[in-house]
């Protein structure tokens, strides 16, 4: 089965090797810095320590103090400085130690970085990345899914991959893009998910979703960790004769309207699954999109399975209730299929 970009979506290309999601991120940065001396990395503890999650392990050794910069605890300074560097044609990658801290630089990102190209013809080629998401009991301040704050900010691009293959290919594409790109790495996947990636250089186009599984009864749209939850639910649904088409959005801004709409025109039903909280989550945007582009094709409501509208609770029992899971997705999808 071929993805939107033609590349094999299971990433098992000739000479492919199986690596973790974490290693895919590390390799993408390593190879981009190797390829292009304008690529730098800035963040808290990214140098000597190699990053809180070890995603920059070995980068300082190879590229030195000028290209791998340990910063003070100053997210606004990191983002602002990166933007200044980008104005000189450099391509800085900013790491937020946990993506939760990105809101400490919210003004710099949404007012300065995002608006520059439209207002002053000043492109800012930079990447802002970091570990996001829950399921590892990080609690209310280490589990954020901040995507919608940025999907609602014109001028940014937002990526949220689910496989090592996509993570590596999309991060490389993000570094080479001339716009500010937010790249979220779901920490639950870092070491739990492995997959093959080609050893040769490749990128994945930003803005393209991919069909992970084909089906005819309904479409499930998801991304990041919930992608795997959705695939698991799809297995269970299949046992009940419900063939689910599962689409991995991969890029949230811009959305791949074509792939989404085509699938729904085929299945006529759509369930959006995201780990982000419900109200104001991306499921709403997709519901509006499908109303605009495929209303007549809908044989049932566009439904959503999401986390609760609360902060992310700390206790495992509470977090399990807060998060969607395969069973919840299965139930919601089954009801929709029967609608």
């Amino acid at each position, binding site marked *: 089965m071929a993805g939107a970009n033609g590349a094999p979506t299971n990433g098992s290309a000739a000479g492919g090797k199986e690596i973790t999601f974490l*290693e895919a991120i590390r390799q993408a940065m390593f190879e981009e810095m190797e390829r292009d001396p304008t690529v730098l990395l800035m963040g808290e503890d990214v140098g000597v320590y190699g990053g809180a999650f070890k995603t920059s392990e070995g980068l300082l050794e190879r590229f030195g103090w000028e290209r791998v910069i340990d910063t003070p605890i100053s997210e606004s300074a*990191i983002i602002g400085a990166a933007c200044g560097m980008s104005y000189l044609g450099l391509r800085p990658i900013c790491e937020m130690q946990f993506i939760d801290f990105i809101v400490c630089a919210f003004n710099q990102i949404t007012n300065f970085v995002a608006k520059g190209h439209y207002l002053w013809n*000043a492109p800012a080629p930079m990447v802002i990345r970091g570990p996001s998401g829950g399921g590892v009991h990080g609690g209310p301040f280490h589990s954020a899914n901040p995507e919608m704050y940025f999907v609602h900010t014109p001028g940014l691009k937002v990526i949220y991959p689910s496989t090592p293959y996509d993570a590596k290919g999309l991060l490389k594409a993000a570094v080479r893009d001339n716009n500010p790109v937010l790249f979220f790495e779901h920490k639950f996947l870092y*070491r739990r998910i492995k997959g093959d990636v080609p050893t040769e250089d490749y990128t994945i186009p930003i803005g393209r979703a991919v069909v*992970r599984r084909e089906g005819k009864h309904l479409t499930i749209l998801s991304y990041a960790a919930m992608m795997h939850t959705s695939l698991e639910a799809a297995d269970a649904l299949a046992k009940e004769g419900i063939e689910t088409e599962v689409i991995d959005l991969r890029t949230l801004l811009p959305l791949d309207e074509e792939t989404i709409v085509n699938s729904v025109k085929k299945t006529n039903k759509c369930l959006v699954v995201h780990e982000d909280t419900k109200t104001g989550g991306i499921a709403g945007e997709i519901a509006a999109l499908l109303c605009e582009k495929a209303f007549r094709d809908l044989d049932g409501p566009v439904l959503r399975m999401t986390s609760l509208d609360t902060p992310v609770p700390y206790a495992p029992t509470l977090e399990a209730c807060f998060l969607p899971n395969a069973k919840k997705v299965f139930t919601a999808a089954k009801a929709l299929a029967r609608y």
Partner: protein
Amino acid sequence: MGTITKQMPRELTRQQHLDLYYYMRLNRAVEETMVKLFRQNKIVGGLYSSLGQEAISVGTCYALEKKDWIAPMIRNIGALLVKGVPPRDIFMQHMAKYDSPTKGRDGTSHFGDLDNLHIVSPISMLGDLIPVMTGVAIGGRYLGQKIVTMTWIGDGGSSTGVFHEGLNFAATQKAPFVLVLENNLWAYSTPVRRQVPLENLADRAKAYGIDSYIIDGNNVMAVYNTAREAVERARAGQGPILIEAKTFRRLGHAQHDPAEYVPKEMRARWEARDPIALYEKFLTGERLLDAAGKKEIDDKLDTLLAAEREFAENSPMPPPEFAEGGVYCTGDECHQIRAKWERAIAEVTPPRSSVKAVWTVPGFGSGKGSGGADAPIHFGDTSVVDKPANNGRPRKAGAKMTVKGAPKKAKPAAASTSRKGRR
């Protein structure tokens, strides 16, 4: 480290004197023209003024070289003019005309020129330019450009968090960056002592262990000499420097504000210290300027501004549909993004870029980077009390996945290979 209140007086050439004088006059004339335009409702939005503060914008920016970078604030029209921005651009920005640098998408001094004049556009949020210009400074050093960057901030703006984060980061990086703090005693309607419990705002520098200067912001020679010294020291690698220029905001916050909250006596005192009048007095005393010379400049400004204003007024408003699109750079055809290297790339690429990842703490030796890719990670790998909901068993379709396999540490070799594969 510390606050330096005086510096070696430096001999200026006649030309430098006349330049400083001309730019201050130009700065004021441009703003006077805009007040006329404002009264005629030709200015869109608010109009700010730097009346009485011209010596700062002009004197500091005049100390920079052409290759250096600035980011002006609302009261730094003078800096834009010294950098070489034509008055018409400033008029058109305020009138939101289609021929303005931002084609009407943004206004006032909110425009930049990354390629030629090296100007970064400001935004309204105070302080944001400080980390940005720190980044330009670090980036310029990385590329070997030997540039200095400069921006301005107000007494009020020095209370923003980003002022602190930006200047602290600049200090840790010893960035070639000069920050000019224009202490005009008021932030909108709020007097400085209500915002900052300091006699001298230059003391802000002490929080970062960087040097600072305190100068009379209405004395353009003092401003220029100090700025020049600061710029040279920054360029020489001595790190960022803060300059506090004492001055006064003669008009309201913007045109709408009569500023009745300012005691009359206070305004009167500063009106008597007008930077242009003071400098004129000095120049005539020194025989650097006479009535004829002054007349010449008057006429020059009249003709110039009449022409510039006419051009601006004749420029059309942007067509409505120009509001659409343009939010993203669409690639090379849109912007050719190329770094200007002025040092050997080999210095920053392997093998020469390689170092040992160790901290050396004076007196205590070194400690090495710990863990490696197999090290436990913050949360993600702390043993989970419950079994992950999605234990990702093999899929019928979709990416092949297995769970909790020992992570593999890619050998740099792999990277090199794929690199060769590309060259």
